[in-house]
């Protein structure tokens, strides 16, 4: 246990993190691209068309990973914010600041692919379906987080204010999700929502789905590490160790 703890404390120091992440990024980015290529091949070429949804099932292979990961982004952003607030680790705020844009773009992608999936299935691009509406709310939460952060001229205060909003937001996500679901089921009791789509998924479709999911996850870790390095540069630009970084 304390091996992990002292790794965690060493990692909390910006210079150490900056150097470690520099070497770690390729280790995530390269496997992510390889897996993505395999996933695309599986999704677009080999996987069979669905007897019911036809080829539109291929949208699932993109929509589901992106949708799951956008929610995971918000929760991990809130966890990083909480760590930043409670133990006052500046790096945790940098991580939260790094996750926000990635999470926002994933949520927007989830909405985009979800509505494109809706057109052939429901005949319209936008349906106030429970999941799509929840993701719309998640997008607003991400937008609020990003807007609040850069409304503050002082980076430290912006971090702490956005962190509080992230924690309040993450507590509300389940509430929003269930109230939207409750509200939605009132109107179309048997609505074929996006989630039901994968209930009856058979194994041949699982391979592309999990490959894509794993690929996007690895990509996300790499992206967040890269953005965190930028945030660390912003926050530590005045510190001495920055000069050594510039030398190489």
């Amino acid at each position, binding site marked *: 246990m304390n091996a992990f703890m002292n790794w965690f404390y060493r990692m909390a120091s910006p210079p150490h993190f900056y150097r470690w992440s520099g070497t770690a990024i390729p280790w995530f980015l390269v496997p992510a691209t390889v897996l993505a290529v395999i996933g695309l091949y599986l999704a677009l070429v080999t996987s069979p068309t669905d007897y019911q949804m*036809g080829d539109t099932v*291929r949208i699932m292979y993109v929509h589901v990973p992106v949708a799951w990961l956008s929610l995971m982004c918000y929760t991990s952003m809130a966890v990083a914010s909480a760590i930043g607030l409670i133990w006052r680790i500046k790096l945790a705020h940098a991580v939260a600041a790094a996750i926000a844009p990635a999470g926002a773009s994933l949520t927007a992608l989830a909405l985009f692919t979800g509505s494109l*999936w809706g057109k052939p299935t429901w005949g319209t691009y936008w349906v106030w379906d429970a999941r799509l509406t929840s993701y719309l709310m998640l997008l607003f939460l991400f937008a609020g987080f990003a807007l609040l952060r850069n409304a503050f001229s002082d980076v430290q205060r912006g971090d702490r204010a956005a962190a509080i909003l992230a924690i309040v937001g993450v507590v509300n996500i389940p509430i929003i999700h269930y109230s939207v679901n409750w509200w939605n089921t009132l109107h179309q009791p048997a609505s074929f929502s996006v989630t039901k789509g994968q209930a009856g998924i058979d194994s041949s479709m699982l391979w592309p789905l999990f490959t894509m999911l794993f690929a996007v996850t690895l990509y996300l870790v790499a*992206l967040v590490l*890269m953005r965190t390095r*930028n945030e660390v540069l912003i926050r530590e630009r005045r510190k001495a160790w920055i000069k050594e970084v510039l030398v190489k």
Partner: protein
Amino acid sequence: MTQWADWFAMNGDGVFVWPCYIVTVLVLVGNLLIATRNRRRLLEDIRLQIPMENSR
């Protein structure tokens, strides 16, 4: 040749499937590019700061 065309058309659903994949790849790769561009700009910005500080 038609074999490629059929695959691409995905019997009519292609018009919805392809935009999904293209936009997803664009957004994900775009994020990477933006991150690297920001990094370059930040490093230049800091590099400019340093001579000023030494001279002060």
